[in-house]
């Protein structure tokens, strides 16, 4: 087998795996967005003065950050299969029957826990004086959150956020364990058909590297945009 032959086969594998790119992106984007919306609520609960919501939010974050994502995926997918009649009586089986739904649910709940901590951290970093000042000019609590606290929290959290997005894109590979043929699923299938795992997984690795390179570039631009009004130390 010639040296060039390996490269030729990697190119062939790249073409084959490209079918999986939209599926990987869909898994990552859907779960990140759902996770984000949920995380705002969880972050608010984490910072709440009331004991019960804070306690529940802390418990949720603790559980989802301390157990492997693979275990969460198996729990949701095979676990729901075991209690099919219960899910049927709740009218939810139509959703849980689908591997796609289970994968996005597990990924979203997982990233929600991480994002909630990031957002809560960002909110804590907003100087208290600003909040007081906003309230002093008569803004409602909701308006203070939307126009003063939250945009600044996002700016604080953004560098760590890019990390979370990269982690999620890589985490979508675990969806291949529940029959979803995204990039890794297709790669596993191709490797066992061709007996050439090296070239196939090298190609899969290249696809993820390219995707995450695009994410990193996007975040650098985003950070620059959000800092456009902040004085630059030069």
């Amino acid at each position, binding site marked *: 087998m010639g040296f060039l032959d390996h490269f030729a086969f990697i190119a062939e594998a790249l073409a084959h795996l490209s079918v999986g790119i939209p599926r990987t992106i869909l898994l990552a984007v859907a779960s990140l967005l759902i996770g984000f919306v949920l995380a705002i609520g969880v972050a608010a609960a984490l910072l709440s003065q009331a004991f019960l919501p804070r306690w529940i939010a802390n418990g949720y974050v603790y559980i989802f950050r301390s157990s492997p994502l693979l275990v969460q995926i198996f729990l949701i997918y095979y676990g729901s299969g075991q209690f*099919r009649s219960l899910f049927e009586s709740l009218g939810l089986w139509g959703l849980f029957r689908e*591997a796609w739904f289970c994968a996005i649910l597990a990924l979203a709940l997982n990233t929600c826990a991480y994002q909630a901590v990031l957002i809560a951290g960002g909110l804590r970093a907003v100087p208290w004086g600003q909040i007081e000042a906003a309230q002093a000019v008569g803004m409602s609590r909701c308006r203070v959150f939307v126009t003063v606290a939250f945009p600044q929290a996002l700016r604080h959290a953004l560098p760590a956020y890019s990390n979370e997005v990269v982690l999620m894109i890589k985490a979508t590979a675990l969806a291949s364990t529940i029959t979803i043929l995204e990039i890794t699923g297709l790669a596993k299938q191709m490797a066992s058909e061709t007996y050439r795992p090296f070239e196939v997984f090298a190609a899969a690795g290249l696809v993820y590297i390219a995707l995450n390179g695009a994410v990193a570039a996007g975040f650098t631009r985003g950070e620059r945009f959000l800092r456009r009004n902040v004085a630059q130390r030069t």
Partner: protein
Amino acid sequence: MKNGLKTLLLAAPLCFMGIAQAQTQTVRIATEGAYAPYNFKDSSGKLVGFEIDLAAELCKRAALSCEVHEQAWDGIVPSLLANKYDAIMAAMNITEKREAVISFSRPYVKTPIRFVTTRKGTGADFVSSLPAITLEDIDATETAEIGKLSKLLAGKTIGVQAATAHEGFVKEHMKGATIKSYDKMDNMILDLTAGRIDVGYTSVTFLAPILKKTPDLVEFGPLMTGGQLGRGVAVGVRKTDTDLQKKFSAAIGGMLGDGSMSALAVKWFGIDISAK
């Protein structure tokens, strides 16, 4: 002196033959030890199973002394090539890809493939007009039977093991169906009982113990063998060991001829899957 030299010349080849025989006499056979009922370990950790019994009988008939060793499936072909073992008996089907690397004896068993479903599921009331289909010589009635199955499964979801001949078969013949590939067959069974797939397509030897444990599952359709599903399970040897290959083939032929292969298959699998 002249006589002495003659004796020496005559004796020399015999002597070498003796050495050659001594070398081939201990045949090290590799098995996986994790694929019941073909080969597995009993509660004391001893290798048992259909192929362990078969190895003993084949070696007795071929006048070989054999040792059976446990070897993980991933490395079983490489370690044969590296001279760690002399033969493989590990439920290994003859395939073109494997034949590019090693040689096979004649097959000893052929594992039939069949559809499995839930008691109330698709195909549970399917009536086969044929008990079995051999795919290498499909006739009109067999084509009709496959067509009937294909029609039944159109729009349904079939679960198969990834990168197997089974997957190839359903992709080619069950065109209207959605195919879901699993890396582990246990997961396919879980999804079948959960109703995520409509039917599964896998070997009856794998299904037998599962059907016993899970009364909700039933097999249906004809037993399928041959053709693209593989030529059967055989002993694998290095390409250079043609002598050993012939000895195994002859012994297998003997066991197939006198019915002892059938008896051994019935003992371990509950059905006669001998490669007649």
